């Protein structure tokens, strides 16, 4: 062979062989649907992972020759990886997009219109069953790009056992005054002045930040946190009041731990489980895990208080918007699977076995007994808080407002910066990062 020596020939052959393996893999994928999600059906640790496995098995059984290949991803980077992969042509057929990144994904044309794939064939009844702000989020009229699963809302986790002990009704804590009074009552200080239990655990670390109190107060008072050009607009009276309220919980009422200045959300869940915090600010998706750790009767959820009696403050909703990659070669099949994962039967499984917030109104209606059970009641509480005070970021909003607001909180606590100045700094940093 052209006078090549033996080694060279072997190397060339190996190269050719590996190329043909790649080609074979490409061909085999004709019946394989790739999906990226943070759930790993093979691990089954999270109840939702077990539901996903069940759904995949059912779908594969009903569609001979089809294989759903889940490629589990790290949730923080998954959406960006997807956006990058759509441009290199290597994105999966089915994608779970972080709700906050849905506008970007749609603007980039990364998601296929689900109406074209299946939704326009739906009866009005069927469409109404999942219709709502989640479904309409970021969509143009007459188009839908995603169905949002694993919905979650930032709000207050509370230790139901401690509330019972103290005789406090969580449903009554809709104003900040009542909330602070309850948290003071729940704070326990030892004889030596050491606090053994804090009424309200907060975390102001910039990594993995959630909506903080100031965020909810600004939305409650102003309705927006951005101006018409999507610029951060925080150094306002509402912002100053909100941040002062948030920090007075440490400075004035001593119901929040001073360590909050650099603690993370994950720390809060640990402390909550350990009984060191009676209330924490958390994402409702973490409730099932807390229930597993503590028992269902010890964990509850309520929305964010406001300055108006009987009304919750807005809090950001989160979720995983499942859609089909616009560049997929098997859009029909992928759409079929997305539709299947969002069917009535599937939603029942997600809710009743996976502990997820229902995405269909019929699921709540038809399973009244399930939601009447006190240990599932929180799902209805979360759904109610979302319905009443769920906040979606406006299209074109950037990212990192939670981080910047927490940075302002740290700045005030650590450097004794004036509240308004700190908010101004955070605002500028945000606007600068987004070239606004």
């Amino acid at each position, binding site marked *: 062979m052209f006078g*090549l020596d033996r080694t060279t020939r072997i190397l060339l052959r190996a190269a050719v062989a590996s190329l043909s393996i790649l080609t074979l893999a490409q061909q085999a994928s004709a019946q394989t649907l790739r999906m990226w999600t943070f759930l790993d059906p093979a691990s089954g640790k999270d109840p939702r992972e077990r539901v996903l496995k069940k759904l995949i098995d059912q779908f594969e059984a009903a569609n001979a020759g089809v294989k759903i290949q889940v490629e589990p991803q790290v949730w923080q980077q998954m959406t960006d990886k997807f956006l990058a992969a759509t441009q290199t042509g290597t994105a999966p057929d089915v994608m779970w997009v972080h709700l906050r990144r849905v506008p970007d994904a749609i603007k980039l044309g990364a998601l296929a219109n689900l109406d074209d794939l299946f939704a326009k064939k739906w009866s009005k009844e069927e469409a109404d069953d999942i219709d709502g702000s989640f479904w309409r989020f970021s969509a143009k009229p007459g188009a839908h790009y995603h169905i949002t699963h694993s919905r979650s809302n930032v709000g207050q986790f509370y230790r139901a056992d401690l509330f019972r002990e103290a005789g406090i009704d969580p449903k009554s804590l809709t104003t900040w005054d009542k909330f602070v009074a309850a948290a003071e009552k729940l704070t326990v200080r030892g004889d030596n002045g050491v606090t053994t239990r804090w009424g309200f655990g907060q975390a102001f670390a910039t990594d993995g930040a959630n909506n903080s109190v100031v965020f909810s107060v600004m939305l409650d008072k102003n309705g927006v946190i951005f101006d018409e050009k999507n610029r951060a607009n925080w150094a306002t009276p509402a912002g100053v009041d909100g941040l002062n309220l948030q920090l007075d919980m440490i400075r004035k009422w001593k119901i929040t731990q001073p360590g909050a200045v650099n603690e993370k959300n994950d*720390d809060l869940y640990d402390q909550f489980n350990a009984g060191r915090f009676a209330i924490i600010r958390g994402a409702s998706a973490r409730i099932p895990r807390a229930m597993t750790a503590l028992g269902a009767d010890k964990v509850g959820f309520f929305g964010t208080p406001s300055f108006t009696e009987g009304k919750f403050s807005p809090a950001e909703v989160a979720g995983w918007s499942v859609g089909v990659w616009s560049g997929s070669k098997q859009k029909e099949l992928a759409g079929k699977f997305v539709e299947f994962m969002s069917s009535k039967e599937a939603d029942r499984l997600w809710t009743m076995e996976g502990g997820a917030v229902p995405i269909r109104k019929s699921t709540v209606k038809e399973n009244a007994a399930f939601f009447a059970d006190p240990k599932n009641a929180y799902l209805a509480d979360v759904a109610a808080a979302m319905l009443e005070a769920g906040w979606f970021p406006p299209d074109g909003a950037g990212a990192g407002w939670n981080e910047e607001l927490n940075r302002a909180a740290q700045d005030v606590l650590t450097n004794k910066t004036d509240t308004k100045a700190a908010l101004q700094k955070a605002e500028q940093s945000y606007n600068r990062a987004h070239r606004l």
Partner: protein
Amino acid sequence: MSIAAAPHGTTPGARTARRIRPLRLRLAGVGYVTPAMALLAFTLILPSLYGFYYSLHNIRYLKANEFIGLENYRYLVTDPEFWHVVIRSTGFTAVAVTFTLVIALSVSLWINQLHGPFALFVQIVVILPWVVSHVVGALLFRWVFVNDIGLGMYFLEQMGIHWFKPVSDPTTAMAVLVGFACWRTLGFAMLLLLSGLKSIPQDLYEAAHVDGATARQRLFAITLPMLKTPMLITLVILTVSNLNNIEGPLIVTGGGPADATNVLALDLYMRAFAKFDYNSAIALGIGMFAANILLALAYTRLVKSHG
């Protein structure tokens, strides 16, 4: 001077001609290095070039749009926060590397004198953090120093010290970060220095002993000069490691409080994955890449000239 007049085999042309190998042999050589070069090209060279290409464009939704030249770099260097981060990172790296080197040197000098199972035990204890996954290590560190239920904090509270929250204060948070960096890299630094110590011929010490040097004089006149190259190599490796380490600032201190522990690696991470500001993130990434290349060059030169 004409070529004909040159003595045989001394013109450059003649020398090159003699060095040319038969075609078959050269092809085999190419064949041997091709897989490694292809792997490097795909995992290192192409992404770097691609990254540089991206950095010259406006990136939206992870897509390179219009060419904007050095605008991303200009944006980065005119960001007032950026220079604070650079200064902080330099300070952090300098302090962490110095501490680690001094401790690693002391420990390896100590271990070098030990014999038997105890020496092995000490070595294992020191190397362990380096073997442990850095993420796990960082979480352990955080649990000891951060939470009220953390081990270290629990003991302090038991002793009646409840005002000490290291990660809540800017100075102590930086100290914790330096501590983590030392803890993480000490084992590796010690291994390098210990192997350097072991390679110093014993008879140099005996000669110095006979020449009348005291233990202190032997340390400064023999051990440290002979350890110069291993120490410089360790210094470069530690600098690279601390400059790029993300587990420490991300997990242990989270960059806070009030940016007190926000260093370059974390800043890059936050720009990219919290603010999704890929334009400045990629400029910073390429800048750090260049700094790393310089350090790697320093490293290879050190290894070559003294190795």
